[in-house]
């Protein structure tokens, strides 16, 4: 029982990171129908920025907010300068542009900060990447005999609060309602006077900012930043988005949490069979399984095409 609770909370905190990136993927997908393969790398770039701000002595919380701002700017710039002009030609071109961004941002991280794993005592002052919540070995709460780490609970709570705020944004504010209407029918949205282009830019910015938060949380959990950190997280996040449905933000959060829990349970209870290596197999099985059985996911709307 105590192990179960421990794994549950570890799963929820891992899943929170997937949920954050999956939210970004879904926000972009339901606006434009494009899958942003650079979502993870955008987040990684912002994480490096936060790391750099930490090097300059800025505390984590303001550094994180600045990093999210950088993410927002990055997202908006990408949409306006790279995606929108190409989207007129074909969706394949957009796909290639996001692959180019993936490669380019990954290279840029290495070009600026070097390819050695950071923090690295040779080049950096920080001992490890700071976590948003207390994460020393002694920082845990005793719940029913289980040692639940404060960091796990904190991250989970933070993501829940953020989801609540996003729910309010989507359903109660003018911007959010505009985003919903663009998602459901771009043509009609334009006809009733919604500035579609500006809404789409905002979606990309929002997605990248949320991704930046996910990157910082993930780096905090692992105490490190490195260039290949986000490959795995991105595939988990896309598995989460697939599971929840590509056009449902709530589904993305729930999908991320479910995936995190499944992954920790499988790796925990079936460690002889699955172990650390094949944890990623969970994501693969979820993606293929969901797409085969119910392509619209748990909460997505299934596409009906008129022939």
């Amino acid at each position, binding site marked *: 029982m105590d192990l179960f609770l421990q794994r549950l909370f570890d799963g929820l905190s891992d899943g929170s990171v997937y949920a954050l990136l999956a939210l970004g993927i879904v926000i972009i997908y339901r606006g434009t129908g494009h899958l942003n393969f650079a979502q993870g790398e955008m987040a990684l770039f912002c994480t490096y920025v936060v790391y750099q701000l930490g090097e300059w002595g800025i505390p984590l919380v303001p550094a994180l907010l600045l990093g999210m701002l950088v993410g927002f700017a990055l997202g908006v710039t990408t949409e306006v300068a790279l995606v929108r002009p190409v989207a007129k030609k074909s969706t394949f071109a957009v796909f290639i542009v996001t692959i180019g*961004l993936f490669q380019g941002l990954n290279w840029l991280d290495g070009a600026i900060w070097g390819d050695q794993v950071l923090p690295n005592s040779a080049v950096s002052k920080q001992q490890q990447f700071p976590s948003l919540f207390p994460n020393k070995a002694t920082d845990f709460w005793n719940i029913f005999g289980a040692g639940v780490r404060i960091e796990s609970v904190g991250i989970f709570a933070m993501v829940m609060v953020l989801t609540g705020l996003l729910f309010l944004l989507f359903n109660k504010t003018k911007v959010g309602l505009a985003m919903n209407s663009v998602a459901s029918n771009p043509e009609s949205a334009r006809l009733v006077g919604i500035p579609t282009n500006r809404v789409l830019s905002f979606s990309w910015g929002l997605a990248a900012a949320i991704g930046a938060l996910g990157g910082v949380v993930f780096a905090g959990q692992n105490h490190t930043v490195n260039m290949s950190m986000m490959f795995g997280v991105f595939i988990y996040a*896309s598995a989460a988005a697939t599971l929840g449905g590509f056009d449902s933000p709530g589904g993305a959060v729930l999908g991320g949490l479910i995936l995190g829990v499944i992954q920790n349970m499988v790796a925990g209870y079936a460690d002889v069979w699955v172990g650390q290596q094949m944890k990623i197999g969970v994501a693969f099985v979820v993606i293929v399984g969901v797409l085969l059985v119910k392509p619209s996911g748990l909460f997505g709307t299934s596409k009906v095409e008129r022939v």
Partner: protein
Amino acid sequence: MKLPLATIKSGGAASWAIRIAVAAAVFAVLLWVPTRGSDPTIGYCLDAFVLMGAAMSLNLLLGFTGQISIGHSAFYGIGAYTTAIFVTRWHWSPFQTMPMAFLIAFVVGVLVSLPALRIKGVYLALVTLALGLVFPQFIKWPKVEWLTGGAKGIDKAGFNFGRHNRTYSIFGWKPFGDMRANGALPFYFWIGVGIVVITYLVCRGVVKSRVGRSLIAIRDNETAAAVMGVNRAVTKGIVFGLSAGLCSLVGCLGTIRTNNVTPDSGYITVLGGITFLIVMVIGGAGSLWGPNIGAVLYIFISVQASNWSNDSSTMPFFLRPFLSWSKVPVGDGIFAILLIALMFVAPFGLVGLWRRLSAKAVAVVPRPFGTASVTTSSATPVAD
């Protein structure tokens, strides 16, 4: 509309002159490199052959069928590990392992294509990306470590050269290099040439046949193709399998050449799959020659970029202010920028760009329908 500066009749004298000149140039390079080229030069050519084969196989899938795959690194890995395992465990000749690798990759490819029948576009990209990420982890999985060697990989996996080998020589010229020393690079070079030629011929054969026409029909309008009687499931499955099989052949070459294989070597990680994609798109999706041009360019720029990072004074002056501060080789950055820029000006890559620009200068008049033999006198130029 402006008239082109010149017209060339397909099958005419000028057309044949160009073909013969290109063939002679290719032939000269193929003879010069293994005989007179230095070891690094042959090595770069082998790198290029690997990318050529992989990009051509990916092109069969993406360029001609419109199915996106980021996970071709997994099929490359299947080839690399098939050779390594069969050579070390059952003492097969590396040549014998190639058909085996093709077969295994073909079957896996067909299996992957089964969900691909329902999954389209970016979703398929997602599935293949996951496949590419899973494969190296699968190799490291403790349950299969007895077979794959886990993270350590497999050593002595290629040809075993030694005193017992014959050294072939024609009047003192050794076409295969010194076969008694390990690392007979010219020998590997010829294997590479063979694999690239086979891959090219298979791609050409598929594309110019009935299957190829149904592929293009599926790419352009799947519903219409199905209505016209194209069997989508079989066609897509076979092409996915063929593409996977061809990609595994260069995996064999990768193992043979370095004589060992690890889960992080070569193009086995998912970054390899992305490299294949970039090479193919830069060269030209949907063109038979495009991937080869992309591969040569990729190797050329990568080699230059690593030279620059060793000695920044060799970097061309116009790049220095932008790239000399980079802490890692700038090749990846250049390709990312090139890739994005190409999507703005030429979605069909460098070959597409060349076709568009050259069409303004030189018009190629196709052979009139029905004149299969080269009878230039009867060909009438078509006025535009």
